[in-house]
């Protein structure tokens, strides 16, 4: 009974959070703090009273309410006073990509798509091996590997794509691969 009450409260706060944020947006600032607080409490309540299921339902509810608020904003958005065709500059010829340019782009693609996959697989493999050798149940160790591989790949690719030098990208992939390979080579 208490759990159902907490869960319902969590859902109400999940739905109310975006509404409060909307009220505080370009409005009274305390509403923003209240909105974030509502979402924070909603997270705690749904997770403790409803577990992963409660959290998922709460997040769905919050996103749905936010989309509803966006729909209202879209409907209320004013049309431009006078329809004016955007001024378009005269078309100019794009510089032809040079061979080194194409090679670098291909290289970056290969690093992000292939080298990162191999490095992340090594990392996931190493992580699950470390977990297994540290006495975890095999199912738990496997899930460490299952979750580590895509997470590592996504974060590695994100970081690399903000780098300037291609060598930085390669070194990052290499570092992750070595970090994953160490438990395999040494334990």
């Amino acid at each position, binding site marked *: 009974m208490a759990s159902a009450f907490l869960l319902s409260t969590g859902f109400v706060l999940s739905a109310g959070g975006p509404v409060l944020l909307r009220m505080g947006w370009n409005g009274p600032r305390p509403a923003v703090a209240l909105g974030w607080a509502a979402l924070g409490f909603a997270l705690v309540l749904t997770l403790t009273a409803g577990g992963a*299921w409660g959290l998922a339902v709460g*997040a769905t509810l919050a996103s749905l309410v936010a989309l509803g608020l966006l729909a209202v904003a879209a409907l209320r958005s004013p049309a431009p006073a006078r329809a004016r065709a955007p001024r378009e500059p005269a*078309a100019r010829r794009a510089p032809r990509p040079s061979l080194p*340019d194409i090679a670098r782009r291909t290289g970056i693609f290969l690093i992000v798509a292939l080298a990162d996959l191999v490095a992340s697989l090594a990392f*996931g493999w190493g992580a699950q091996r470390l977990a297994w050798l540290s006495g975890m149940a095999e199912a738990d160790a*496997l899930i460490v590997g299952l979750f580590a591989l895509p997470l590592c790949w996504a974060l590695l690719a994100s970081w690399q*794509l903000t*780098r300037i030098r291609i060598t930085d990208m390669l070194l990052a992939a290499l570092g992750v691969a070595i970090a994953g390979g160490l438990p395999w080579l040494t334990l």
Partner: protein
Amino acid sequence: MADAVNPAAPKEGFVARALKGHAALGLLTGALLYLVCLSGALAVFQQDLQRWEEPGAAEMTSISPAAVQRAIEGTLERQGKATDHAYVHMPTRGLPRTVVTTDNGANYVDAQGNYDRPEAHAWTQFVLYLHYYLNLPAFWGIMVTGALGAMLVAAVVTGVLAHPRIFRDAFRMRLRAQPQLARADLHNRFGVWLLPFIAALGFTGAVIGLGQLVFYTAAQERHGGNLEEAFAPIFGEHPLHDPAPAPVARADRALEWMAQNHPDLFVSYVTIEETATAGQQISVLAEHPRRLIYGENYLFDGKGNFKKTLGLADGALGQQAAASVYKLHFGTYGGIPVELAYLVFGLALCAIISTGTTLWLMKRRARGLPSPRLEAVWAVTIWGSPILMTGAYWLRVVAGPQLPFAALFWSALVLATILAALRPALAPSPTLRRVLAAMLALTGIGHVIFAGPLPMGSLLIDAALCLGALALVGPEALHLRRRERAGQAHLAAQS
């Protein structure tokens, strides 16, 4: 990414570099990601779509254990071939039908367990396989879609890094502003408010798709390369192989045991492994309310005696986590409201992907570097692929379920893409959008008229198709009407 490509370019800040990385990811994966997300949005309602595609099959809200047993034995007898596995899909909310599937085919049965007709949901299956595998061979296909999942998470991360004002503008949605601004608002606002959904979707998709690689490594490391043994700690062991012939396993007894001992649980699936051999095992999948796990497997021997549960509901944390990935990905954890939310979110994600590349193309045009060929190819991807998916359904209706829909779809898409690249003016984006709207409306209306008496679920799908058509052409029609009125007012003022 341009910096990495051209290190001689002037140095840019972190945000600018993140934006270029975000754009590069979008350009690299956008088209395939769009196809996976579009088919994924439909896949949420896969059972309802199957029912919609194949009207007229026997329906029931529940089926007795004896009828299930009769259905299994009758199907095996009809097929007359040995099968390793036999599956029974029990009536559910989305698909209130009983389907018996073996290695040799699948058929519907009636409420008494008698044969009704073959299962022939070829179009729904084509859409599902487009989502799971991009219609490629299963192993490679799921690797590609898994990789796309990881790239979607990377796009979320770089997107957040690239937009420091993303929360400050959280409710700015100027959809009626100039096209570029309207699209930027849509891309950024949907992106920020659907961030948990997109991240969860990408991550779970990547776990499902790339998971096999981890199981392969574990198989090599600890199980002498035996993949089945590597899966066992999470998904259970295969029963001991004993090929001696035996009567078909007593699924009826297993279901009676479930009804007596767990009347609160909903049984969605019955599986018999090593069917009709002495080593056979029955697995009853029961859904646990208010859980993210796809269910718990209750295991029985061939005589229908309960042995144990697999542990997906209360076993190792790893088992529970792995079993929770699927419902979270497909949005089947909260009934119709959550499924509808996932449909909306999925279509919104398609809009995010579409506007991302469109914005890139618009910015190029604004810099004096228009790419009409790329613009036409992108328009074909965005509007042409749903047109072709709808066309595939019409082919299914006219020519039957045996056509190779995947091959036809991809051939047509490649051809349309080549045509668009060669003749960009042939089918501009607004024309393609109107064609799609017309096809959706015709499909909805045609289905109601020709598919015979339909259940409410199928009627709602038809209504949704007509509403979708309206949503596609409605804003354009309103805009034209407003412009016409403004023109008339201008003329009146002049006279």
